[in-house]
């Protein structure tokens, strides 16, 4: 009998974990089938018992992580990754607005596309990070010098750079050199096709980390934020 309360607690935790798992499954299904209404219903119902931050951490982030991993394994398509990120970003913005004090306390962070006009990768990472509770500046498409100057002006601590073309990926080396020359301690996280097809390239260009997909970027940003805080 003495163990009874403990068993109750374990049973309750297990039930909650099971419910959360089912909820994440349902949310993931709604996202990959681009069913905004179903996704919204799940978030609305879950927000009765969870705080906005709990909801993001227990529901949105795990679902987006699975979708990112699914893309990596060839089971989910990029169009689904993009639309999932957009849907989550919109939903999270309603429960955790841009200026909300409950958004994560975080170092200054920015994202940019370097050189080329391929903006989708950046848009996906931006959406997924915001949907995961992070706030970041979007520099859009920039040259090396524009990027260096903006990073310096804004005191950015974590810089995410997205590229599609190999020449653009190689320009990250120039960004690193110029920022180092100014004594900047910014952490550079890179992503995009050239880095996915050559997994040594991110080190060669002097980046601090490489995300193979947007969900990996969330994990990397979380780790770096902890390290530099």
């Amino acid at each position, binding site marked *: 009998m003495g163990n009874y309360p403990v068993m109750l607690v374990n049973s309750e935790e297990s039930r909650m974990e099971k419910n959360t798992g089912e909820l994440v499954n349902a949310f993931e299904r709604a996202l990959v089938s681009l069913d905004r209404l179903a996704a919204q219903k799940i978030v609305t119902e879950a927000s009765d018992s969870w705080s906005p931050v709990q909801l993001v951490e227990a529901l949105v982030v795990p679902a987006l992580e699975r979708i990112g991993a699914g893309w990596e394994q060839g089971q989910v398509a990029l169009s*689904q990754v*993009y*639309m999932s990120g957009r849907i989550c970003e919109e939903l999270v913005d309603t429960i955790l607005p841009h200026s909300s004090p409950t958004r994560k306390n975080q170092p200054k962070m920015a994202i940019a596309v370097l050189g080329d*006009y391929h*903006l989708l990768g950046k848009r996906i990472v931006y959406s997924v990070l915001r949907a995961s509770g992070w706030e970041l500046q979007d520099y859009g498409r920039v040259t090396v010098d524009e990027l260096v100057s903006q990073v310096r002006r804004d005191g950015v601590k974590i810089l995410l750079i997205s590229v599609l073309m190999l020449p653009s990926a190689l320009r990250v080396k120039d960004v690193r050199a110029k920022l180092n020359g100014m004594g900047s301690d910014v952490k550079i996280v890179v992503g995009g096709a050239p880095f996915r097809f050559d997994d040594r390239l991110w080190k060669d260009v002097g980046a601090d980390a490489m995300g193979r997909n947007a969900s990996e970027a969330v994990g990397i940003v979380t780790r770096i934020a902890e390290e530099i805080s």
Partner: protein
Amino acid sequence: MTDMTSLQRVLTTLGHKEPDRVPFFLLATMHGAREPGMPIKEYFSKPENVVEGQLRMRAKYRHDCLCGFFYAPIEVEAWGAEVIYVEDGPPNSGTPFIRSVEDIKNLEPPRVEETPCLLKVLSALKMLKAKVGDDALIIGVAISPFSLPVMQMGFDKYIELTYEQPELFDRLMKVNEEFCVAWANAQLAAGATAICYFDPISSTTVTPRETYLKTGFQIAKRTLARIKGPTATHFASGRCLPIVNDVAQTGTAGIGVSVLEDLADTKAACRGKLSILGNLNAIEMCRWTPEYATAVVKDAIAKAGTGGGYILSDNHGEIPWQVPEDVLLAVSEAVHTWGRYPLDWVQEYDKQALSRGLRELEA
């Protein structure tokens, strides 16, 4: 077996029979500018430069095709869009020319015969045909109606259009189909032997199969049926294994395959249905050594060469400017050495040992 011409070699493999050796397509569009030491922008400004570059490269690397492809954004340049040149890579498309989805309602395709940038390509194809006749395959390239909107309106806006505005999507596809058919047929008339139907958005990396079956698949069937020559479909390093059987029904003869999928699995799925083109990792190739290049080519031939239906090439359809000449020469030498049919050595080949060897070379 007596040596075949390049064209005979390619046609034999496309018929799923073994030619004298594995055909080799070196799709090095920019390296032609290296030969005369010309800036990339100047190189693409005149068809004579591209013809000279293509001929010089074929003499050096001994590959089995010539390529009339200049650069991907030439197709949106034809619609009035901006092209951005860089000194160490392919020209890029600039700001999308469809600024608002409403623009689609009034969009009309450019007329090929009145568009200077396209006439430049046609002129190059005519000159290439005059030089090589029926000795080598001459490739023309047409971006699929389903993939062109990435440059026309931007990738994010295009995905949203696909899912959220089906009527405007259909209108855009109708306009693009007319352009694609006219452009492909003009290239065939100018001297191209076959058209590479460049369709990365149909790859399962980008579009789920169920969406592809309603969109890219239907569009490819309609478009390829109106192109008056053989076609091969290229996914530009995107995955295609889950849609191989569907792609085979679009009327295409070949498929450009990705390094993200195992070449032996891809060959097994395509055998007798589609010839495969690939799948050397062109990005990684920038830091290969000649020894590593040889090992990778040997591995690819061991996995896909038997029975024909295989052309050795890169997996993207464009060799980066940064890939060194000695690596390309090693790729060529390896396919000439190890690609000669019959591929008796493959029987004795220990694929595990090769994988270990590749890892050692990589280390």
